[in-house]
């Protein structure tokens, strides 16, 4: 299968690879996919509770080149956005940007899920308040 140049670029030079401290209450972690399915994405965001702005984003992905590219692109797109804006990112935009073939659309769906899961985790932590000890992000 031929990959688009953008997929190859993200695969060769993935943006924002790494991890943020998952116990930090201002960090939301999304872990989606499953090893049995051949795709697992971990997407983390550091969000400023005052401004709601996503100040940093990191990812790690187990998956094919398209999955790596989708999550790498997702980190680029969410950085600097407000949480509400980030939630509006649609998988179809990722498909378009990376020229993903139909068989790889699930990679973009997973990236959208990862964004939503990370924000949900952040909101859960914020809602839980400071009285609770921050829980490590779970995948369930």
């Amino acid at each position: 299968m031929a990959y688009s140049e953008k997929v190859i670029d993200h695969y060769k030079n993935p943006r924002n690879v790494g991890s943020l401290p998952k116990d930090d209450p201002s960090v939301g972690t999304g872990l989606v996919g499953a090893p049995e399915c051949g795709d697992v994405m971990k997407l983390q965001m550091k969000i400023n509770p005052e401004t709601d702005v996503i100040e940093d984003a990191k990812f790690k992905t187990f998956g094919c080149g398209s999955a790596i590219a989708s999550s790498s692109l997702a980190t680029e797109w969410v950085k600097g956005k407000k949480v509400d804006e980030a939630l509006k990112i649609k998988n179809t935009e990722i498909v378009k940007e990376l020229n993903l073939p139909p068989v790889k659309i699930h990679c973009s769906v997973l990236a959208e899920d990862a964004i939503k899961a990370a924000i949900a985790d952040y909101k859960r932590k914020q809602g839980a308040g400071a009285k609770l000890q921050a829980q490590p992000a779970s995948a369930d």
Partner: protein
Amino acid sequence: MPKGAARNGIGEKERILERDDDMALKLPIYMDNHATTPVDPRVLETMLPYFTQSFGNAASRNHSFGWEAEKAAENAREQIAHLIGATAKEIIFTSGATESDNLAIKGVAEMYREKGNHIITMAIEHKAVLDTCKRLEKYGYLVTYLPVSREGLIDLDELRAALTDKTILITIMYANNEIGVLQPIEEIGRLAKEKGVLFHTDATQAVGKIPFDVQKFNVDLASLSAHKMYGPKGVAALYVRRRNPRVQLSAIIDGGGHERGMRSGTLNVPGIVGFGKACELAEKEMPQEMARLRGLRDRLKEGLFARLDEVYINGSMEHRLPHNLNASFAYVEGESLLMGINDVAVSSGSACTSATLEPSYVLKALGVGEDLAHTSIRFGLGRFNTEAEVDYVVDRVVETVVRLRELSPLYEMAKEGVDLKQMQWKAD
């Protein structure tokens, strides 16, 4: 590999990479010899006159063009038969091993319908066998699919127990195309003979690579293909035993009655000539080639194991083709690994490389978890691979696996002591 040794088939886009040891390396490197092999230049040379000069139809009985073509095809038949311990009359030419498998299984099923309707095969057969058996099930045949062990081997006691008085055929491959594991073919042949059941083996990956003898193994039908052994594509054969017992087949292709009525159609004379030459070369060079490829394969394996942790071999190392390695690189998805080593041609058992989105059914049958099946790579060494190529492939695989593990959340979690098997994954 000696200087000036034969290489071919790579094409114009190749780059030359100068190495410190002054050994020039041509890229890309082909290491997918279970998929197909390049035609040996000596084979091609033998074939060429049969396209333009001796182009006759081997079935033309009235002129020298036909006689010449027939003579060439019969010579090739002898060469092929000799390699597998058969006689020339027992070789039926077909278009490919897929057709050979179809002819053997459907041909026996129809011919021996009165005798019984039960066929025994195995879970890790090639699709050409499995899907043929599935079709026969629709027509009322009963098929037993024997499971395999973690090593990829059938249990002979289970085979024995599966036999009934309605069993007309055992079809079990010799060497598997993904993991290279060799079934206990001699024992299967002995059992089949003892029970009076016909035994077909898809020997496509084995013939020309390791010794295969239809007499020694008591094989009644065997599929073999030219392009897996440095011959051309589009030509293959089915060995059909003529004595003790004489096997009869119903044809699946009807027409002019070629190949003793078992396979009608004009013979592909240039292809057949190439097939014959490929068999002659394989027979002559097999002992040295086996030893050399085993050395290269072991060098590949040792190179990978020395520099990477959590690499798992799929299938038995003991009962295996000398030129096959199939390994899972935990936490690194196969397709992304292939993308990282894009100047090396190998294949993956990952779902992402197939149209079905299911990982390898062969690895699944071995009990390899789907997580590890997604990380598997098949290396198939061949006649034209060199030690320098193996070293280059080791370097590329190691650097890519290290890089992708840095990118892998699973690797990070495993290193933190998270039990990945106990996680509740949110799959899409």
